[in-house]
């Protein structure tokens, strides 16, 4: 009975999403549709980070780097040949990529696979580090990827970035991927792998004693997380049409981290809602940066104010959550003092 009502709720949400997207595409202006797209992408990003940080209890700060890999993969693979020639005027693109022009779906899959591949390559050696060190090492990798992309002129066009990536991303793509991510991660967490992830989060030593292979599960969780980060990066490239290495700074990772923290470590539903709230909120807070005209008085906009508010929310969210105003993860011992 309970299973059945759950299926019904899932179906209702699905139908409502599809209906909502249909109406949005029909009646909203381009700016609002873009925010809806961004929300979908951030849902995917938040979930992929939550899989690594919330559900497996590793602390990775490498998301921006894996997004960069995905974004560049999609950018290079989908860009028309003539556009490539225009982009790479400093140095011609490496020959084996010069005449490629893929469709969006294979390019997105390639983006995810590339990111996952790098995730495994990077993760295999560093995932044995514990929280602080892992955070710094993954942050370092994201930074290395950015520096690498700035310097590999014939592959990524260096600091100039890529322009004119076809705008394949629409609400169906962004939210389709988001729904697939929700489904996949719920599916994963229900099975043995998910149980193993949670066991590792709660107590690594105990998990190992019960025969859970730490290495295998950590790398697996990391690879899945990176896969979705790469796909989301690809969607971002298809949405913006222009990417350059400086987009993928640590700030981007922190945005996603805020979503994860607000949504709750290890929570799927919370992450989806937080992703939407944060994305819409970041746009809504834009008024702080711009000049305001209240009729009788004019307030000069203060650039950067938006991010100040943003960071205050981040700190407040952590402190308030710790004080117990928001719900803690169900049956979790992570918050016991250690």
């Amino acid at each position, binding site marked *: 009975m309970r299973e059945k009502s759950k299926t019904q709720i899932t179906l209702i949400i699905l139908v409502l999403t599809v209906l909502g997207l249909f109406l949005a595409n029909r009646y909203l202006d381009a700016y609002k549709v873009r925010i809806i797209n961004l929300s979908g992408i951030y849902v995917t990003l938040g979930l992929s980070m939550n899989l690594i940080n919330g559900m497996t209890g590793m602390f990775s700060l490498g998301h921006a780097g894996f997004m960069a890999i995905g974004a560049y993969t999609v950018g290079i693979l989908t860009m028309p040949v003539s556009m490539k020639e225009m982009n790479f005027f400093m140095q011609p693109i490496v020959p084996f990529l010069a005449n490629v022009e893929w469709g969006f779906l294979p390019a997105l899959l390639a983006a995810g696979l590339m990111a996952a591949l790098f995730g495994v390559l990077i993760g295999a050696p560093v995932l044995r580090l514990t929280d602080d060190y892992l955070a710094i090492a993954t942050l370092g990798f994201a930074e290395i990827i950015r520096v690498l992309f700035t310097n590999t002129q014939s592959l990524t066009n260096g600091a100039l970035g890529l322009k004119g990536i076809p705008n394949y991303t629409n609400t169906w793509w962004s939210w389709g991927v988001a729904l697939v991510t929700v489904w996949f991660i719920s599916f994963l967490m229900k099975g043995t792998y998910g149980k193993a992830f949670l066991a590792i989060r709660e107590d690594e030593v105990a998990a190992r004693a019960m025969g859970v292979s730490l290495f295998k599960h950590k790398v697996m969780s990391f690879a899945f997380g990176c896969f979705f980060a790469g796909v989301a990066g690809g969607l971002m490239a298809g949405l913006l049409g222009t990417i350059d290495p400086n987009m993928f700074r640590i*700030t981007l990772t922190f945005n996603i981290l805020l979503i994860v923290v607000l949504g709750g470590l290890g929570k799927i539903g919370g992450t989806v809602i937080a992703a939407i709230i944060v994305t819409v909120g970041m746009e809504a807070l834009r008024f702080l940066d711009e000049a305001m005209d209240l009729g009788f008085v004019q307030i000069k906009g203060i650039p950067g104010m938006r991010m100040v508010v943003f960071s205050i929310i*981040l700190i407040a969210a952590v*402190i308030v959550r710790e004080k117990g105003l928001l719900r803690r993860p169900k049956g979790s011992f992570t918050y016991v003092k250690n």
Partner: protein
Amino acid sequence: MGDVSIFLQHLTNGISLGSLYALIAIGYTMVYGILRLINFAHGDIFMLGVYLTYYGVTYTSLPWWLVFILAPLLTGFIGILLERVAYKPLRGSARITILISAIGASFLLQNLGIVIFGGRPRAFPVPQMLNRVIRLGGVSINIVTFIIPAVTILLLLGLNYFTTKTKTGLAMRALSKDYETASLMGIDINRIISITFFMGSFLAAIGGILWGSRYPQLMPLMGSMPGLKSFIAAVVGGIGNISGAVMGGFILGLGEIMLVAFLPRLSGYRDAFAFVLLIIILLVKPSGLMGDKVTEKV
């Protein structure tokens, strides 16, 4: 112009950059030693120190040397404030929670910097006395390049005296050795933590002033890269260990300068050097060059 003199020039540059990293790294390592917390906002405290000095010199009539002392003191108090607001409410919670708060604090300081100081780069008012170029055997070297290591060594001697000879220093070391036991011995934890943050921020601000005299361009985001790199220096030397942090700083500074000097083709990868070094160290010797070996207890 022999090769030797060019090498010496690179060497002095490396040593002075290394000293700067060392000064900032000490703050990371001291805080980590006691609270087991990566104070992500430390690099931004460094930035605040530079800006406070800039405003002090430019907009007040105080002599520059007085500003150079007052600004670090003020930065020290900002460090204490930071701990009170962002870290103290979370003491005893999961490490990941405090780490997120630290990231938020770093973010806040950076963006407050943009709001208050403006995003435009500013020129650091280097005092005439420090801004002289001397010629030594065919190479011209800015005098600041020598002042930086000298100041660093003086501060390190002072710090060494403080941690080994004073009662507060003893309490600090006791806390970093064993937090729980030390707190049972009547040590006022809050006071020691405040002092730790004060000293770390003070040193970072001094590092900032020296940094500004060497690379006189001020930006609100200027703290994040040196901050990250100094943290790496602390990890390389063995986090929690002050002499390790100093050593890590010098290794990093010299390595960076030498990489650019002798492999100019790789100069674009200069910022990646520190991170590659970090990852190698973490894989080969996670406790750092001078750190204690950590054993896992069940």
